[in-house]
């Protein structure tokens, strides 16, 4: 089980959290202005990298807040977490 450092609550076990997928996906400003490929890209395409991954988590059974996390998808080691408005630490 991962030990995830919530930026507000500190380290807590993984089963207090809900995974939220890739972080920093930007919704097109005007969805009607983009074509189907770009919209499909936004909805469905993911980096799915082998290595460093910026991802969202929600401390569902804690403070309830969303935050971002840098994790290595090979070792599952967490390099750090940060609040939604902040830039990645590493």
């Amino acid at each position, binding site marked *: *089980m991962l030990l995830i450092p919530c930026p507000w609550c500190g380290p807590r076990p*993984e089963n207090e*959290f809900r995974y939220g997928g890739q972080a920093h996906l930007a919704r097109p400003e005007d969805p009607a202005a983009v074509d*189907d490929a770009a919209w499909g890209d936004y909805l*469905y*395409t993911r*980096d799915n990298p*082998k290595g460093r991954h910026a991802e969202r988590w929600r401390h569902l059974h804690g403070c309830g807040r969303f935050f971002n996390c840098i994790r290595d998808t090979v070792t*599952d080691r967490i390099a750090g977490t940060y609040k939604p408005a902040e830039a990645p630490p590493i």
Partner: protein
Amino acid sequence: MAHLSKFSFLSLLRHGAGKAWSRQWRDAQPKAAYDVIIVGAGGHGLATAYYLAAEHGVRNVAVLDKGWLGGGNTGRNTTIIRSNYLRPESAALYEHALKLWEGLSRTLNYNVMYSPRGVLKLAHTHHEVQVEKRHIYANRLQGIDNEWLTPAEAAAFCPVLDVGERSRHPILGAALQRRGGVARHDAVAWAYARAASAYGVDIIQNCAVTAVTRDVSGAVTGVETTRGPIGAVRIGVAAAGHTSVVMAMAGVRMPLESFPLQALVSEPVKPVLPCVVMSNNVHAYVSQSDKGELVIGGGTDAYTSYSQAGGLYVSCETLAAILEMFPSFRRLRMLRNWGGIVDTTPDRSPIVGTTPVTGLYVNCGWGTGGFKATPGSGHVFAATIARDAPHPLAAPFSLDRFATGRLIDEAAAAAVAH
């Protein structure tokens, strides 16, 4: 088929009398170029190579794998086979596979131990009863066997089930696909490898693809590997959990996320479970191998990962769910648990077809349930590569459905127990 050695009653007698068995396939060295390269020597990749050779006359084929043949999800799954999917596109594709399973041992002259012992899918709530009955009616319209059993009928079919009203998850009924069952996963990889190798296909192990090379027009020209460059104007990617990584080498981003999916086996015991039992509600599925081990699977881990491990608590939850259904399994010890990396799509349906890159084809997104599709997947993917156009059964599963919006939503069929 020009086999190295054909299996028959006579050959069994001869080898039983002391004649040594020969190698079943060639461990090939890479040549400079091939007509087709398949990336990934799992069941899907090997089946693709076999059907390219057997049905399309394309025999100058290499199957590359970064590890050993069948060492990824082919050797890590829980071997369940069924075709009772909801949508007509899926049902047609999985039924195509099931029909191939039924004759596969004979076709490949190798016993893949396909055992149609029945797949029983339990319903614990009224919602599940409705969903399962909807599946049954949809399947009947599609000509696929699937039938409803009352709790008493389910208990008669699978006596170890606790259908008592006092159970924590009461069984209100079950959907049964009698033609569903299991097969020996390793044997499937070996059988396709042996049959493909006999046609001249090169199976090249410990040969990781590190780059996809392309010409000025953008068309593929081959791959760079840890064993040197290999040329090919057609490349089929069947790399399961690593598909995003391989496709990124060709500049194609995929609608995929890779998750660990864990499984366990118990110590072997005498026959106790005559069929496959699945329950989406308690998040677990179980069957008994011919060796006597209970083969148990559950849901994926929550987060994307390539670690092939996953959290132990996920397996513990799966076991807790199994024990709710089968209290008599309480004293069994678990021998092993492990994880595989499954590539899941947003609609829980696979992607099989052409890509925006000329000469590059992809077969992925089978998620948590790819094993059952192995023969059908290889069959339609081979046709897609050979004709440079999607096989009719593969056409709905195109990559561009994520732009057109024509998704094939199998989340209900596949969310947990694919």
